[in-house]
């Protein structure tokens, strides 16, 4: 029942002399109840799917991680933390964890610093802003699977542009995706290439929201050199945006998968295997369900911790108001 219906019921009752109008408190309760019912009806489908598709699966992943269940098996038994012990003892998983950390710690600073620098340079002048923004943003929405194939052609040991250019300059070449020392950094470079435009666009928005009067005040106060304006106004005012960019880029970097799957399959050896790829391979290629669930739980824990720590930091450090 909607609000106006209740209203008209009430007025109908007033028109009828025999019936005593409901006391206001009762009316208010009735109104609140009908509003709650409407809300329930409207939010119901979303709530149902949120529970079935998000929260039950999250609960399930915790449960599966504690069992020896495998796909297709009709029975399962609880094995306590043995899946986690297995995961933690596994050199492969530890390598994957380290690789992920290395990957993230290249991608995040690279993306944030380059994104900020490009945003500053674009905003530093007036001509061709839209064009430069479009060019740098393009990789972020281009299908990464297809672009990974393009990168493979670019990095191809013999016909790739990179090696051809290096050879032409007399520099040493490499088999970029098959060399265990460079495969992961190369994937990180592709990660930076893809996310750079995203960081840039966020920084551009941040720059636009800095009040012009602050720059005027800096001018009058004598902070009128480029570097002084940057230090006095621009960088401090970008603090909140920067924290946001760091969080989002870090989360995206932790979730790197497409390039690994298409370009290296975690190889050579395990040199470029990252957490999500481990999660995929253990769960769906090797069908080690319990193991995969344990990896998923650990992955979730890492990502959640990261988010919470950074949200906390953001609250205390960069909010000036």
């Amino acid at each position, binding site marked *: 029942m909607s609000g106006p219906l209740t209203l008209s019921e009430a007025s109908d009752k007033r028109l009828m002399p025999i019936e005593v109008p409901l006391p206001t408190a009762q009316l208010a309760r009735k109104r609140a109840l009908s509003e709650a019912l409407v809300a329930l009806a409207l939010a119901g489908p979303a709530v149902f799917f949120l529970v079935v598709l998000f929260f039950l699966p999250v609960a399930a992943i915790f449960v599966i991680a504690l069992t020896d269940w495998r796909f297709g098996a009709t029975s399962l038994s609880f094995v306590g933390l043995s899946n986690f012990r297995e995961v933690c003892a596994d050199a492969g998983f530890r390598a994957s964890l380290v690789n992920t950390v290395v990957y993230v710690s290249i991608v995040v600073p690279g993306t944030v610093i380059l994104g900020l620098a490009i945003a500053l340079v674009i905003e530093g002048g007036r001509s061709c802003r839209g064009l430069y923004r479009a060019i740098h943003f393009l990789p972020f929405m281009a299908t990464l699977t297809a672009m990974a194939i393009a990168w493979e052609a670019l990095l191809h040991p013999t016909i790739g542009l990179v090696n051809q250019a290096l050879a032409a300059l007399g520099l040493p070449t490499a088999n970029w995706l098959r060399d265990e020392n460079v495969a992961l950094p190369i994937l990180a470079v592709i990660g930076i290439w893809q996310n750079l435009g995203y960081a840039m666009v966020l920084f551009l928005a941040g720059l636009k929201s800095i009040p012009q009067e602050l720059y005027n*005040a800096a001018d009058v106060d004598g902070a009128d050199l480029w570097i002084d304006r940057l230090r006095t106004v621009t960088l401090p005012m970008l603090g909140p945006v920067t924290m946001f960019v760091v969080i989002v880029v870090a989360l995206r970097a932790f979730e790197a998968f497409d390039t690994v799957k298409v370009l290296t399959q975690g190889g050579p050896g395990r040199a470029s295997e990252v957490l999500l790829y481990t999660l995929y391979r253990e769960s769906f290629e090797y069908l080690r369900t319990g193991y995969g669930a344990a990896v998923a739980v650990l992955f979730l824990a890492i990502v959640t911790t990261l988010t919470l720590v950074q949200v906390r930091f953001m609250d205390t450090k960069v909010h000036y108001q």
Partner: protein
Amino acid sequence: MASVSIESIRKDYSLVPVLRNVSLSIADGEFLTLLGPSGCGKSTLLRILAGLEVQDAGSVRIAERVVDGLRPKRRDIAMVFQSYALYPHMSVASNMALPLRMRRLSALQRLPVLGRLLPGTAQITADIDMEVSHTAKSLGIGHLLPRKPGQLSGGQRQRVAVGRAMVRHPAVFLMDEPLSNLDAKLRVQMRAEIKELHRRLGVTFVYVTHDQAEAMTLSDRVAVMLDGELLQVAPPQDIYADPDNRRVAEFIGSPKINMFDGVVRERGLIDVAGSTLTIEADAITGTALSLGIRPEAFYLAERGGQGTLTGSVRMIEHMGSDLFVYLDLAGIDQPLIARLLAERAPHIVPGQTLHVGVRPERILLFTRDGRRLRPDRDSSKGAVTPFREVAR
């Protein structure tokens, strides 16, 4: 201590003229207000004075020195912005210290950690801190020094902005609508404080506002700006009582001045809205003129006749001590507004016929193209001359 002189400033924004040939001299120690509606170019003029924008033509001199092409920090000016423009990440103390640090410390000495170790930095920093705390105390914000701007009330932020401007003893204070973000009560209080500050510092103030009350109460002289032109520069009382032209007369004063079109009947008499008023001017019979009469210039007359206007009461607004009476005059769309003392004008009701009188010296006369005709008190000046031009 410095005078400011502005000569023939022009400024266009993408071919739209914002300032058309503005010239103005401000005396040393004067409080001058640029008053005008938003978009009239007053803020642009202030920003050109500050060096935040560059004029297309003309020249600015501060303390007899041409400052065109000089960066803001070299102009010996300080500015208080409408939004205060305090750096949100710095404490009040750092905000106020910044102008001094930028001037007295070299780029190396300002480096984050290393700078502190360089010779001289400690001494200069200590001096700056002392001056900042001295200024802060004189403004009554000493206890706020460690806080961030976000933790301050509007009035406190305003004081900090003033403090940041004061701390380095500029020759000229520029203020861009500094009170417009405060509530009405605080605005009145801060207005008094700014006036007191000007008296205490004795330096030149250039103050931009759209608020007539601020302009009238604060200024030594008011410069009225409309559409990128200076219309009149005069002390507040003259701006109100003796405007140079019709636009100034209409812009200043609330409720607005009553304007009527009239035709001179004979020397000293003019026909307006079916009545005849006495005016203090020689005029050729048949000249078309505009009359401006302030609402408070009217008095309640017993009966109609020469020197009075007659109309029927459309509406009455009680303002406490005063009444605003709206009169419909024959043949005029706009109602006449008279401001009458409440105690002298009892029992007025809508629909009633009312006679209001006005003394000749309270009538401001304008030519039809808006120029003021001043009364011919001194015949050698020949105030009559403009009439011929008009009559052509």
